[in-house]
């Protein structure tokens, strides 16, 4: 092996090592998905609160809720595709999926209330989002 080939092999080995480091475990993926979901629900809640206080427009609130749903859908797909090995990982995966689903339901319901426009319905939606965030944070903390 000449010097140039040696350098090439060393670079290749370094890249493989990096890729191996970069590959995330099931635990990391679940943690990440829960964090993203909690953030999305918190964001939806803030947007809805601003709308109920008449400091945000309907367009902004609707867009924020839509973005939150996209984020939650992404997190749900990520966790669903995970191959859990062992009972503990299966339990974690299920707990995460339940938490994310509660977020999807709460944001979906909030978007419906937004289009209906009833003040009491919006207040309930804010409460439901808060509960969903608590569930998500608990699912993250329980791990």
């Amino acid at each position, binding site marked *: 092996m000449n010097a140039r080939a040696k350098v090439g092999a060393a670079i290749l080995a370094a890249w493989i090592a*990096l*890729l191996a*480091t*970069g590959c*995330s475990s099931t635990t990391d993926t679940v943690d*990440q998905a829960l*964090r*993203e979901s*909690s*953030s*999305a629900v*918190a*964001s939806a809640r*803030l*947007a809805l609160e*601003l709308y109920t206080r*008449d*400091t*945000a*427009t*309907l*367009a*902004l609130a*609707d*867009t*924020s809720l*839509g*973005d939150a749903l*996209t*984020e939650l859908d992404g997190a749900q797909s990520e966790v669903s595709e995970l191959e859990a090995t062992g009972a503990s990982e299966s339990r974690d995966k299920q707990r995460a999926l339940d938490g994310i689903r509660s977020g999807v339901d709460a944001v979906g319901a909030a978007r419906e209330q937004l289009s209906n426009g009833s003040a009491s319905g919006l207040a309930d939606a804010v409460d439901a989002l808060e509960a969903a965030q608590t569930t998500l944070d608990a699912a993250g903390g329980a791990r």
Partner: protein
Amino acid sequence: MKRLFAVALGILTAIGGFVDIGDLVTNAVVGSRFGLGLVWVVLVGVIGICLFAQMSGRVAAVSGRATFEIIRERLGPRAAVANLGASFLINLMTLTAEVGGIALALQLATSVEPMLWMPLAAFGVWIVVWRAKFSILENVTGLLGLSLIVFAVALFLLKPDWSGLAAQAVTPQVPAGEESPTYWYYAIALFGAAMTPYEVFFFSSGAIEEKWTVKDLSQSRSNVLVGFPLGGLLSIAIAACAAVVLMPRSIDVTSLSQVVLPVAEAGGKVALAFVIVGILAATFGAALETTLSSGYTLAQFFGWSWGKFRRPVKAARFHLTMIICLLLGLGVLFTGVDPILVTEYSVVFSAVALPLTYLPILIISNDPQYMGRHVNGRLTNGLGLVYLGIILVASLAAIPLMIITGAGA
């Protein structure tokens, strides 16, 4: 009086034109996750862009030729191809992100899906590039972009704990729940956002469009040395708003709608209207600049006739390049890729390409054959070398950090 007005206008448009989708998103992401712990990177980035933009403007004003024309002549086709390849691809990525950003800003105003706005945004960019005068397109978008000052106003209205913010900025730390590689990954992204290559090429080509001469050097300097740092303050205000409103709620920024929530919280619907106008102007202005830059880089490299000062029929290949680039960007966006994701990648890849962009500028601005007595002084060269070191480190570390952190996840 006329001169003073021109200087003031130049500075104001430099401030308004400093922020683009990359700055908006990256500063908000960083603010929501690291508070003001990465403000130092904005400072380093702003000094760097000032340094190289004024070098590149000086090259254009003194030699009467744009940077790319000279790079090929001075460094030969091989080095120029590396420079062109890196700059052109990053520019195309940035153009895609900016057109997506226009669509996202319009969505904030209307809640209509961005996909429906994208063709209209690209058409709007093309028609303005085709029809509007260079000075008009630069000044109108730059001045409207000043609406983003609402981020600074919002920060005051939020009545933050100033000492807490100052402590975050002065003694940067990696917050609990974040890791060092992620912190450094975002440091590079922020650096790439501040030093986006297209800004320098646009500045240099713009100097030719506006027929700058040596007499205009002081105005060029004031535009850069006053306008860009004030633009940098806007970037810090965006990060600070996110740090004050989003960080305590554990909201990580992944969409443009989240970037504006702190402004709505602070100033209600009026402030929201200002910020949407500002984002629209900033992204539209940057889309114009990146579209023009794509034409400038290719035309200057191949020696084609170029420039807004020529009628389109006299610079057909220059205009055709811009149309093709807009269509390519639109094609990428139509795949359904998230424009925010394109933005995040574009700023990191900007950092990767920085040495290929900035080293040739440093070499040319030291060449007395082109610059005469206006070559770089010792201080500029010293700083230039320090920055080349920083740029090289950022460039080499960007991809490994992207892999290790899962692109900052």
